[in-house]
């Protein structure tokens, strides 16, 4: 292994600029003659707009314009589009109501965009926004899932009777019924998956900049996928042809999914910049992020599992209600369906699985993908249910899992819910986790905790996830309205340095390092002579961006395909320079050598020859050394793993302290183990956050967001998590040449059930069998109180 190639823990090339304040985020960018937008948002959860009087705001000298939904509707092509269509059980399409960037006649959640004030400073825009007088006719609102489906519930959309967006199913219901009829034992679970607010460190921001001379638009935005924004906003909202619209997502400070989507503010600033003839900048503050970034999760489910006498799973039946919020966010319908229910087979060979999902509109912020997107919901439900099944069957949590794992010789494994797993060794990751968790000495630790008056519990989860959604034609058949390939260009410069242009987007993942390692491995070019360019539709080929742990498995593979083309051409050039047959030229460590001889040219010699083609086979080969590839994966990738958590519960206060957390994961081949470990740490921390701390709470009467700031919405902090013990066990992905699977979401998927299983284990001496998530001190205390009574 080269010290900077595949498998090396290369320090992140991008970190120097980030930790020395040299990052350039959207809000750092200012354009000449720029003005500032502030969005007037609805203070009510559901209301008709009966009038907007902006005269007082407009009377200020520093206010340039106040624009409303009526202004915008007159000029734009359409509303914010939904990028994934889902059908009802009967084959009819889902309800897909219009989503204007600025509300026209009705607001449907607290935070809904009503008007935009544009002024010469951000402070002036905000001051003036308070002077915009909006008259509302308040309507009854509903925010929680149980009430949204009740008789007489407030109706949010005419086209969605009973607030149902779609009522969808997957799997063979008859086969599951038969499994239950044969079952000798069953277990069941009612489970909530708590609603989360993403909270990327960098709030969203956007600058629209229209060039009148060239009739061209530039949008700077905090996006995980600038080409997707260009396509959706250009074609669906503003009617701007793509060659006249450039979208730049510069350094982006975290996304976790919330920056995948096309948001109203992007369209508003782009549109307003042409209308006003000045660049328009908008930056969210944290309070605004809470009510305008798409939220995550928010499911209620009932699940039942059928077993035989040996505790082998015969069938799984799941009924889920999912909250989509007030409007369909860009990929909202895919999350509680194809990214969720298809994962319900888990690591198990359960022969029959059936799931029905009713997706509901409520008067809340739109809900969409958040780290893991559907897969954490599946894993949490399944791994809680499997622990319950173990109790019913009288087996340990380990034994019931081993009895039901897909066997190592069972791959490729076709699940009953559409996916085909290509590789894995669930037994090995379980064993690895048991080893690093010092599983056998738990009793001694439990005793030590008891001596301190604390209840120690242990929980484990074995999870599978599906990354790199693909192939495009399959995703299309399932409702995706976009391709799911990735692009990459390798541009070898005349002096031998390399510029990589990738359609993937790094907003914390470390692509500038990992992708450089791939190039170094292939071409032998010094890692510091490799620059990775991303996030600018004016520079990079059409790419789909970064989400769903897809960057390496899809974007990395596009890069590998481009590198293969570079290598093939380099060998042709070298063969010419060496006057040898191409077949005799070996390419290794940056050198092209005639096999078995000492005659060689360097890759730098080849690059120079390609651009200064004086001694060059011009009759058969084009000059230059630049190649582009588009890569469409053959299948999803299937990372898997086992997480083991130990908690200490203080029975006097209900406080849960995560004392130990071990993650053994199979991410396929690992390019940079340090970056992978960092991804696991971050993901597990967010998973612990979901399990113990984070909870988005609305008041169901008023529709107000109660957990509307960091004072009440509890993100996990450094002192809330232990040092993590992490390990990997590799089985290679079978359908990509790198053998990579993806690691970005695993922690957020595997951790919540491991933590909650541990909390339930700790409380088992009180007879507690279940606890709602997040297991806050108050909930744990209440569980102990009700159990003790």
């Amino acid at each position, binding site marked *: 292994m080269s010290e900077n190639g595949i498998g090396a823990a290369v320090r992140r090339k991008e970190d120097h600029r980030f930790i020395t304040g040299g990052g350039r985020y959207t809000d750092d960018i200012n354009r000449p003659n720029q003005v500032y937008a502030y969005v007037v948002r609805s203070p009510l959860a559901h209301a008709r707009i009966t009038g907007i009087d902006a005269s007082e705001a407009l009377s200020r000298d520093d206010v340039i314009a106040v624009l409303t939904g009526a202004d915008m509707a007159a000029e734009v092509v359409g509303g914010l589009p939904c990028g994934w269509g889902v059908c009802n059980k009967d084959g009819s399409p889902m309800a897909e109501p219009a989503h204007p960037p600025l509300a026209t006649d009705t607001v449907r959640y607290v935070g809904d965009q009503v008007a935009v004030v544009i002024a010469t400073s951000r402070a002036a825009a905000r001051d003036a926004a308070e002077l915009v007088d909006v008259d509302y006719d308040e309507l009854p609102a509903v925010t929680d899932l149980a009430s949204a489906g009740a008789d007489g519930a407030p109706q949010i959309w005419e086209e969605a009777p009973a607030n149902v967006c779609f009522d969808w199913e997957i799997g063979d219901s008859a086969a599951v019924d038969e499994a239950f009829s044969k079952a000798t034992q069953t277990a069941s679970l009612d489970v909530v998956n708590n609603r989360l607010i993403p909270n990327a460190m960098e709030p969203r921001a956007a600058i629209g900049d229209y060039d009148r001379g060239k009739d061209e638009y530039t949008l700077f935005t905090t996006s995980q996928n600038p080409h997707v924004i260009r396509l959706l906003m250009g074609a669906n909202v503003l009617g701007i042809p793509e060659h006249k619209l450039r979208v730049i997502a510069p350094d982006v400070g975290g996304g976790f999914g919330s920056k995948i989507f096309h948001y109203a503010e992007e369209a508003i600033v782009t549109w307003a910049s042409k209308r006003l003839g000045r660049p328009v900048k908008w930056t969210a503050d944290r309070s605004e992020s809470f009510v305008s970034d798409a939220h995550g999760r928010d499911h209620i489910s009932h699940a039942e599992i059928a077993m035989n006498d040996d505790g082998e799973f015969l069938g799984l039946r799941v009924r889920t209600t999912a909250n989509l919020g007030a409007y369909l966010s860009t990929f909202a319908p895919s999350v509680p369906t194809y990214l969720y229910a298809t994962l319900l087979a888990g690591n198990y060979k359960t022969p029959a699985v059936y799931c029905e999902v009713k997706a509901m509109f409520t008067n809340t912020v739109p809900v969409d993908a958040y780290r893991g997107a559907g897969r954490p919901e599946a894993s949490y439900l399944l791994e809680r249910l499997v622990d319950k099944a173990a109790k019913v069957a009288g087996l340990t949590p380990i034994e019931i899992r081993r009895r039901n794992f897909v066997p190592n010789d069972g791959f490729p494994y076709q699940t009953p819910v559409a996916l085909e797993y290509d590789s894995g060794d669930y037994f090995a990751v379980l064993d690895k986790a048991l080893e690093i968790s010092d599983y056998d000495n738990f009793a001694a630790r439990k005793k030590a905790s008891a001596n301190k008056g604390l209840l120690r519990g242990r929980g484990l989860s074995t999870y599978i996830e599906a990354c790199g959604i693909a192939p495009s034609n399959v995703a299309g058949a399932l409702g995706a309205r976009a391709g799911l390939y990735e692009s990459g260009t390798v541009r070898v410069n005349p002096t031998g340095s390399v510029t990589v242009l990738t359609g993937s987007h790094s907003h914390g993942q470390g692509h500038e390092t990992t992708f450089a390692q791939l190039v170094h491995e292939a071409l032998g070019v010094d890692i510091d002579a490799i620059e990775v360019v991303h996030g600018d539709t004016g520079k990079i080929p059409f790419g789909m961006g970064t989400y769903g742990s897809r960057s390496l498995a899809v974007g990395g593979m596009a890069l590998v395909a481009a590198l293969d083309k570079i290598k093939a051409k380099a060998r042709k050039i070298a063969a010419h320079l060496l006057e040898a047959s191409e077949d005799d030229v070996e390419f290794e460590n940056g050198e092209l050598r005639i096999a078995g001889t000492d005659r060689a040219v360097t890759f730098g010699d080849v690059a120079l020859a390609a651009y200064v083609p004086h001694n060059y086979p011009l009759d058969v080969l084009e000059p230059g050394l630049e190649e582009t590839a588009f890569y469409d994966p053959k299948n999803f990738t299937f990372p898997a793993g086992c997480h083991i958590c130990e908690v200490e519960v203080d029975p*006097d*206060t209900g406080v849960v302290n995560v004392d130990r957390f071990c993650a053994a994961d199979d991410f396929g081949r690992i390019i940079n183990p340090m970056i992978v470990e960092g991804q696991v740490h971050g993901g597990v921390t967010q998973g612990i956050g979901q399990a113990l701390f984070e*909870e988005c709470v609305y008041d169901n009467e008023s529709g107000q967001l109660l957990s509307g700031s960091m004072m009440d*919405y509890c993100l996990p902090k450094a002192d809330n998590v232990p040092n993590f013990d992490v390990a990997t066990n590799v089985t290679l992905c079978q359908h990509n040449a790198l053998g990579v699977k993806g690691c970005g979401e695993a922690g957020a998927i595997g951790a919540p059930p491991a933590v909650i299983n541990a909390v339930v284990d700790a409380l088992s001496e009180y007879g507690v069998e279940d606890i709602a998530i997040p297991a806050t001190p*108050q909930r744990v*205390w209440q569980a102990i109180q009700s159990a003790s009574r």
Partner: protein
Amino acid sequence: MYEFNYHRPASLDEAKRILSGNDEAKLLGGGMTLLPTMKMRLAQPSDLVDLSAIASLSGIEVAGDSITIGAMTTHAQVAASAEVSSRIAALSVLASGIGDAQVRNRGTIGGSVANSDPAADYPAAVLGLNATVITDEREIAADDFFTGMFETALGPQEILTAIRFPLPKRAGYAKFPNPASRYAVAGVMVAETGNGVRVAVTGAGANAYRVSEMESALSANFSASALDGLAVDASELNGDLHASPEYRAHLVVVMAKRAVAAAGG
């Protein structure tokens, strides 16, 4: 935030002159509550009178049987003070557990006490340790100082200058922090003082208050077990997303026991 006039007087007299006749002016200590409130546009003072340039307002002074802490002394300074930790360890513990490092480096004892936030830590210390609040006009006994949620005995133009803590025989502080904000959901200062045992609670009610049943029980027997079976009435307590009144009532007892244990009882 809305626009305001900013002043940074060099003396108390100058501060008083700015305040006089200016009903919408606010004193600025560390700003850890006021500035976020202004940023959220929930406060709109016409003038901010920043007290940080008045040297006489900062510092920790030990004199005989008391410690006097200047109003502009930061939580970090109190937490780091050997004079404080060797004489009233419970006060050091309390100061070192406020908010986070950034808050402790900016926030001041005077600002915290004058604000009477129901969830702030210092009010429990002032009341539990039977401190005296010193202002530019007078001295106010702790028992007379906290009058309601964000309300104190301070007059509109009165400036809190220092707090004098008599040295207790022993004292302990225990706090259950709000998981999100780290403010006190229930914080209890227990102290055995020259005038008997005092138990002061913050976080649970509208403002810091004493619990006489606990004081009697601990006067008879200064040990955590003396509080066994003692229940706190939940009906007057705060309830929010993180803790119902019933849970708070329970936590007050648990924290009181832990405070007694911390005091060596």
